């Protein structure tokens, strides 16, 4: 296959970026999208030119490292698929592909397609956990959890923290990410003691970072490679409301 790439190049956070054009004329449909970028980089490096910086690690759709807008879609055109799991057979011979970094105020660009997503870590640090000391846990079966609650928690916990939801949102909101973590812990019996403080602390941190507000566009759910449902945002809003009206901390 012949493919024309238009890739965002940006030297560092302070420099201005631009789209750079590259022609690849020997792309196999069996390549993954990132392998296609490897081939491009390989040729850049052996010509002494700087390769395109992009983030990746597991290449199995689970670590959440890979992060790029492909033709305007977070992680590209295929639903529920991370960029690393996308394959070139999703494109046609002769296609032009535009590749850009996540664009959001809370994710400053570091270089080319690499952005800083530590704002998401800080939301978790603010309260995205159950405060149980190590060694103090009761026997695991002493806290029964009904199967559907466990399944709901797992649905929410499947979030890989890639930030596609933020990148896809016209406001750059981290509502789906935050809601998923809140829901994972707040639906479980183990998470009840901190249910209110957790949601308040996490939402507060989210507001302090440069994320935008949620105005129910639903783009986040469409872009999420793990299919996390916006129903969790409803749960977050309910819990937040209850927590705001309650006096206990």
């Amino acid at each position, binding site marked *: 296959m012949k493919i024309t790439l238009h890739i965002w190049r940006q*030297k560092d956070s302070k420099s201005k970026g631009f789209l750079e054009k590259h022609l690849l004329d020997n792309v*196999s449909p*069996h*390549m*993954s999208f*990132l*392998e*296609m970028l*490897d*081939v491009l980089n*390989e040729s850049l*490096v*052996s010509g*002494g030119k700087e*390769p395109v*910086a992009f*983030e990746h690690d*597991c*290449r*199995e759709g689970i*670590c959440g*490292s890979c992060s790029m807008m492909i033709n305007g879609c977070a992680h590209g055109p295929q639903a529920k698929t991370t960029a690393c799991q996308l394959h070139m*057979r999703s494109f046609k011979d002769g296609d032009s592909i535009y590749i850009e970094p996540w664009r959001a105020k809370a994710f400053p660009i*570091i*270089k080319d397609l*690499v952005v*800083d*997503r*530590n704002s*998401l*870590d800080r939301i*978790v*640090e*603010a*309260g*995205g*956990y*159950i405060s149980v*000391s*190590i*060694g103090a*846990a*009761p026997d*695991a*079966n002493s*806290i*029964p*959890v*009904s*199967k559907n609650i*466990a399944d709901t928690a*797992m649905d929410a*916990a*499947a979030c890989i*923290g890639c930030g596609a939801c933020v990148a896809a949102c016209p406001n750059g909101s981290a509502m789906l990410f935050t809601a998923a973590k809140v829901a*994972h*812990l707040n639906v*479980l019996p*183990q*998470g009840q003691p901190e249910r209110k403080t957790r949601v308040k602390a996490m939402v507060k941190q989210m507001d302090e970072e440069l994320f935008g507000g949620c105005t129910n566009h639903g783009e986040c759910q469409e872009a999420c490679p793990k299919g996390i449902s916006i129903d969790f945002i409803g749960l977050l809003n309910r819990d937040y409301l209850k927590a705001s009206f309650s006096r206990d901390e």
Partner: protein
Amino acid sequence: MTLNSNIPDGPIEKKWDNHKFNTKLVNPANKRKYNIIVVGTGLAGASASATFGELGYNVKAFCFQDSPRRAHSIAAQGGINAAKNYQNDGDSVYRLFYDTVKGGDFRSREANVYRLAQISLNIIDQCAAQGVPFAREYGGTLANRSFGGAQVSRTFYARGQTGQQLLLGAYQALSRQIHKKKVTMFPRTEMLDVIVSNGRAIGIVVRDLVTGEISSHLADAVVLATGGYSNAYFLSTNAMGCNVTAGWRAHKKGAYFANPCYTQIHPTCIPVSGEYQSKLTLMSESLRNDGRIWVPKEKGDKRPANEIPDEERDYYLETRYPSFGNLVPRDVASRNAKERCDAGYGVGETGLGVYLDFRDSIKRLGEQAIRERYGNLFEMYERITGENPYKVPMRIFPAPHYTMGGLWVDYNLMTNVDGLFAIGEANFSDHGANRLGASALMQGLADGYFVIPYTIGGYLAKVNPGEVDENDSAVKEAVNQVEETTEKLISIKGKQSADYFHKKLGRIIWNECGMSRTKEGLEKAINEIPKLKGEFWENLSIPGNSKTLNQELEKAGRVADFLEFGELMCIDALTREESCGGHFREESQTETGEAKRIDERFSYVSAWEYKGENEKPELHKEELEFEHVKPSQRSYK
């Protein structure tokens, strides 16, 4: 130096309790005066950092990814073992201990394995309390499955994402300590050396991967939780960034490397599709429960699989191992697939693949039943290969997956360098020559949550807090050395990328130090690798400079270490003239062609000492004793 494993006295069931009691404690008020460095935030590193923080120590944690949550542990699918016996099917601490020693082909330490089995119980309690969404029964209790050929159901799981959920649990516990300022997190920071002064580890040298700045961090103890080295083969199921750098640089500073040739090759991975292949994807082992493995009986038969009639198919595992059939252990399945492909019977474009066929189970159970069991795996397979496994058989091939070797540690998980500890896949301790499914996650969390928090206290109680000195000449020396190496790499200005050399190295190690090995092949590799290393240092290309984010520079540093380490793997393999665990030494087989272990000569841990560049490493042996599980030959016929 003599190797002292420091295994406590007493009966095996009491060793750990006695040891905990006899270990000196650090006074609670003093804990905040001690600094601990933890490199790595996978299951082992994140759980250790969180626990140290909770105990009151000051912790600095490092990882090269942009967030601690992305460590490679995230990718584990299958599950985690624990001897809870919730299914009342006869499991016990002793049985898990027994299975693990036997599974490791009698090349691990009994005392360590027993402790691991004991602690497995606490891990599940801890994780459930943290909110890890384990699979549940309708009644609300935890569900289990049997995994990797175990005869009891002791594996706990969270859909196909067990590693992810366990890591998120540890990451959350770590985040809580970061919030409390007990742990300072340094993401995008790569450790490039250990600082050793007078035989004691006092810190590390790191490079900030964004600014390129090289600096030192000092501490009273250093813990390496830096994962495994399967990427020495270039293609493996590991994440792209997994590497041996931390372990190798520690080795060059005096830490012994144990059993580097013990690697595990997983039988069911998606085969390579072309030169550009960057990594291999694991397909769950559970597929072998319902899939039948075969190749055509005729060499080079290019007909589509479905057009090859039954009598022209060679179901080689079923004929060779009638009692276990397609469920033979990982090493046996892998070796046989390679043997068939080497003999010219492989399938697919490259000839490096065998069929895993679900036709008969679909016929027997219906497509729906198969979809329920393996739906997500089938989808993943189709996404990667573009083929529908409900209609045509899957193609699979073995791939490097896990490394049992690692830094040598004693019972306290301390290396032979004072104050330098290694935990998780980075150490060698518990799996012998072969790891059982679902036991790496167990070991990572056992080490991090429950072992090292005690044993490090025993070490720290013996040293004064903060006595490490910034002006120690070892600090400056180590920093200078890292700066020099970095500049040297960047100034080669040759023509080839780091990946180019990595792929070449991978091919040599895969061919000669993979599933089956010979004296001749290993000698050839030991001859070829230094040549490749020479070529690397002459013809490497790293565009850009070292003062920015430079991913080629990161890769090059790791490949430089793999080139040296790969040679040690082969040297270790050469000295081990027996077939054992995950590997087959062709000279050491039974009359029927099965693996032959030689206990009289090789019942030891190989611990290698670095002797300097271009010098031969020195082999030290830790003899293994088996009081409880008597060594026997495995047979699956």
